[in-house]
């Protein structure tokens, strides 16, 4: 996992990918609709030649990012949408998930199962950890009032996280 890029910042990094190689979705902030983004990302990743193992990793990461955007970013306000932009280049697939919130207020937390079992840590709260663990690059960019986004990238040259 040493080659991973992760972090939280207030400066967009972007990748300079062209819009001709991108797909955009807008989802209602309604739980369940993250599956639309998850399945779209899976279809694109398969077309690009990613292994099923990497496709499964991406599906979980995209679903968790969308759920976070709906729940924490948009507070499940169905009048607000979650944006999903999939951008392809020859060797990688980038997924940005945008919302109207301020972005995560803390760094990614590695779950401690013993603390959870003893009631010292909430059972929930594993989404950001899973995203970071399952993709090659993950970052969270906070840029209020415009909104915030999670950015994830998987590389074709990286066979396994």
């Amino acid at each position, binding site marked *: 996992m040493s080659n991973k890029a992760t972090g939280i910042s207030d400066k967009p990094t972007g990748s300079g990918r062209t819009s001709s190689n991108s797909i955009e979705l807008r989802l209602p902030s309604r*739980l369940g609709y993250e599956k639309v983004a998850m399945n779209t990302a899976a279809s694109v990743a398969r077309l690009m030649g990613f292994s099923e193992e990497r496709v499964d990793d991406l599906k979980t990461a995209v679903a968790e990012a969308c759920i976070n955007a709906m729940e924490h970013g948009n507070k499940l306000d169905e009048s607000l949408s979650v944006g999903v932009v999939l951008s392809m280049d020859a060797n990688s697939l980038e997924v940005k998930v945008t919302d109207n919130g301020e972005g995560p207020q803390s760094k990614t937390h590695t779950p401690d*199962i*013993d603390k959870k079992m003893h009631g010292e840590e909430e059972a929930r709260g594993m989404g950001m950890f899973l995203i970071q663990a399952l993709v090659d690059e993950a970052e969270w960019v906070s840029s209020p009032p415009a909104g915030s986004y999670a950015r994830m990238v998987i590389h074709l040259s990286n066979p396994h996280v």
Partner: protein
Amino acid sequence: MPELVTRVTVEEIPATAGDPITVLRFSGDITSASQPAVIGTYEGLPETAKRILLDFSQVEYLNSSGIALVIQMMIAASKKGQKINSFGLSPHFKKVFTMVGITKYTTLHADEASACAAFD
């Protein structure tokens, strides 16, 4: 695209030795909306249930909120001295369960037979 309803069936099967095994067979989605199905079903089990087997083989979608419900169930089982084994997870979710540390409190098996045998 609403979430698929979580369905749970409960079955008691005899063990080759010792207490019978109570099997919770999940299907559909396991998400934040699954609390009544997952925790409610677990809480409805008789106090005599000591060996609990979780069957995930028909689960179509599982997210971190659903995994949290599994953890909540394990917390309750631990307090009651119950043992939980699991089977039917895809290789991807075996990896995810391992990442979050659940495997410290439940063993993941390839199939029902090996999961049942592991109670002995």
